[in-house]
């Protein structure tokens, strides 16, 4: 009889009781299994951290080396003790992002962390992993979210740049993942001019390059001359767009790369003039198609707009429940 009592959803993380390990815990624990490097999933102060080598490198950059990091190669099982094994599979979210398959007593549970199904030049694509319980995110879990192809959004960005030879386009993008993906996609679209970046992106861009993801010529925007940034793309964290920092830019068009840009009022609330619907999360079709493909006995929904995804599961005769998790944020993606 399957009971899954070995895995428990607590408000601050998913607890794997036989080995006393936590998945993406919101507070410091002895043993943490981390899906990816975003701050709301990878927090500092843990004893031991199991994560991909890339994620450990990202955490090292953000928190310094404090935890005992145990690199987990993709698709190789790790024994966590207590009869639990963990296997990491790509999640397609950002560099190093992984889903975690946990197995115990013949039961299989997959925790997606954050994921997407669209191609991304900065990380390997999501893999469907069969399981009994599928623990999924639902950041964009409403049917209004349909992310357009990224090529369309990159084309919009390049058109705006052409129309503004005497100014620049300032793109607000999350410092880990989104910024590098936007830059890599611009390069793929043939844009080979220097791209100016905010100081907060420098370390992460260098780390991506060290992991074999070429980003072309990047120059620091801080300290750059107004004149030389004319007709250029500047990438910065979203918070810098409406900050005094942006005053150094020559007549910027304010753009933001985020899945939320699908909603007009969301863009307006942030004074965005050029919304770019670019997301590192699954949209509605990706979320629902993935549940259908994985075809678990039960889906657990960690964070986001869980009510709508629950409703979809109900309409499609799928067992599901929402976990009341704290600490996951989605504002900037």
């Amino acid at each position: 009889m399957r009971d899954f009592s070995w895995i428990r959803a607590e408000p601050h993380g998913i607890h794997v009781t036989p080995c006393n390990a936590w998945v993406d815990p919101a507070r410091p624990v002895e043993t943490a299994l981390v899906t990816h490097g975003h701050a709301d999933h990878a927090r500092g102060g843990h004893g031991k951290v199991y994560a991909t080598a890339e994620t450990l490198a990202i955490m090292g950059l953000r928190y310094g080396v404090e935890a005992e990091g145990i690199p987990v190669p993709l698709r190789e099982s790790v024994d966590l003790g207590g009869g639990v094994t963990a296997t990491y599979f790509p999640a397609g979210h950002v560099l190093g992002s992984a889903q975690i398959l946990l197995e115990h007593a013949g039961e299989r549970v997959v925790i997606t962390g954050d994921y997407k199904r669209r191609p991304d030049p900065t990380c390997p694509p999501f893999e469907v992993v069969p399981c009994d319980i599928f623990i999924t995110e639902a950041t964009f879990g409403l049917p209004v979210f349909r992310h357009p192809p990224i090529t369309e959004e990159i084309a919009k960005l390049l058109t705006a740049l052409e129309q503004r030879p005497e100014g620049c386009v300032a793109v607000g993008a999350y410092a880990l993942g989104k910024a590098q993906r936007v830059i890599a996609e611009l390069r793929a679209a043939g844009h080979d001019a220097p791209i100016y970046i905010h100081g907060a992106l420098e370390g992460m861009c260098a780390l991506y390059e060290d992991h074999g993801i070429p980003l072309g010529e990047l120059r620091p925007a801080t300290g750059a001359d107004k004149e030389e940034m004319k007709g250029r793309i500047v990438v910065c964290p979203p918070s810098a767009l409406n900050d005094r920092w942006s005053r150094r830019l020559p007549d910027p068009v304010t753009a933001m790369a985020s899945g939320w840009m699908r909603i007009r009022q969301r863009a307006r609330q942030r004074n965005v003039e050029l919304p770019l619907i670019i997301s590192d999360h699954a949209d509605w079709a990706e979320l629902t198609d993935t549940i259908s493909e994985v075809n678990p006995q039960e889906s657990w929904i960690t964070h986001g707009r869980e009510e709508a995804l629950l409703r979809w599961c109900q309409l499609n005769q799928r067992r599901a429940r929402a976990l009341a998790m704290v600490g996951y944020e989605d504002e900037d993606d």
Partner: protein
Amino acid sequence: MQAFAHLIDRLTYTSSRNAKLALIADYLRTTPDPDRGWAMAALTGELDFPAVKAATVRRLMMERVDPTLYALSRDYVGDTAETVSLLWPDPPVEPPPPPSLDEVVAILSAMTRANVAGELPKLLDRLDANARYALIKLATGAMRIGVSARLAKTAFAQAFDVPVEEVEEYWHGITAPYPDLFAWAAKGEAPPDLDSVPLFRPFMLAHPLEETELDLTEYAAEWKWDGIRVQLVHVAGETRLYSRSGDDISHTFPEMTDALPFPAVLDGELLVRGAHQGGEEGGAASFNALQQRLGRKTVSKKMLAEAPAFVRLYDVLLADGEDLRELGWQQRRAALESLMDRLDPDRFDISSLIEAEDFAALSAIREKARDDAIEGVMLKRRDSPYVAGRRTGLWYKWKRDPLLIDCVLMYAQRGSGKRSSFYSDFTFGCWNGDPDKGAELLPVGKAYFGFTDEELKWLDRHVRQNTVNRFGPVRETDKSLVLEIAFDSVHASKRHKSGLAMRFPRIHRIRKDKPAHEADRIEALQALVRD
């Protein structure tokens, strides 16, 4: 349609007035007739497609998506048109190419209640999400993109380098898609001929008086009456009645269109008879009584007999073919007084001036104005010409101070538009007895403004952290927060459980310091009713 949708899209994300003007002007210059004329009509709110209602659009959507998923989406997005534009499924087969704006207007105009359910989806299928949004906004008549009719006309003037005052004057005599107006502005042809048309002239408006004292030798004072501002226009044997926004409301008040027998343009306050305003001198009923007559397409004989309308005149713009607008107020007032003999006293009286020795005396008179339930005092520069809009230094309105009451926050709902992620619609109540002896709160009103952006953030957080119950999009709070509510007046109402309806309620202050049981009781509010 794509160009229009693109314009709407760009306007949505543009906050600077100048940038908006430039976008619209550029569109008007580069778009052919008649599309650009229809776009002007859409921006100025002159299009009406009675067969297409927001409810129709919603219903068509519900046939295509699970109602719960629709409701969750609508609640999140905060706007029906946008929700539908995003949720509308791609058609199963390749649709015909997108229509032009002219074609869209023609299709929408031809729709009837009987065929809208079949025709509208076909149109939506031909458009992408952006154009669907523009289409629904256009069809249901609420663009809400931060572009007023005035701004659109200014952009028109800017596009073709013509005076905006002339554009405004011509505007009310012509109909969409305004071929004559474009021929005049864009091609330098003769202006539209409007001599025989009962034109609406834009109203002269007042600034609020703020902490300044005026010299009453320079300014005349008169009452500001609590009705609706109207303009009566008589040309070539025909009389029209226009509301403040320039809407023709003649059919709602037929008794007034028969009452002006000579060519003139008069400015005044529309009121209905009753013993409420103006004391024994045959005054007017409360605004509440007037409201019973507003917005009706037809008027019953009973209504005409029970609540007859009349206009209390403030000003005269044209009389007997003469344009008086350039004259000073004092001269126009004299002209108006001389006209009164020729007007039916049942339908017209003149707004009397307030005799006050000086500003302090006027202030004292105004203090007492509450009893007469009038809105406040107007101050008009004696030499002011009649100019459209709100010109600094000429006219001031000095409203009476608002009434205040302490209420308890009961429910909150997320707002629309820019406030779609904030709990910003607040329902508040008063106690129906002694709260320490088990009295309950009864809702007395709803307000969604009056607070600063900072206060809104605070209120939003308060609602999220103190929710005890959810009913769809509505949250019930723990009823711990006292809000000081300002309002203009309160009336008896059968629609509300408390039996009271406030006029113009707004959140005046957040009383974090005051415990909920010390908020006001219903009796306190009842005592302020002046019906």
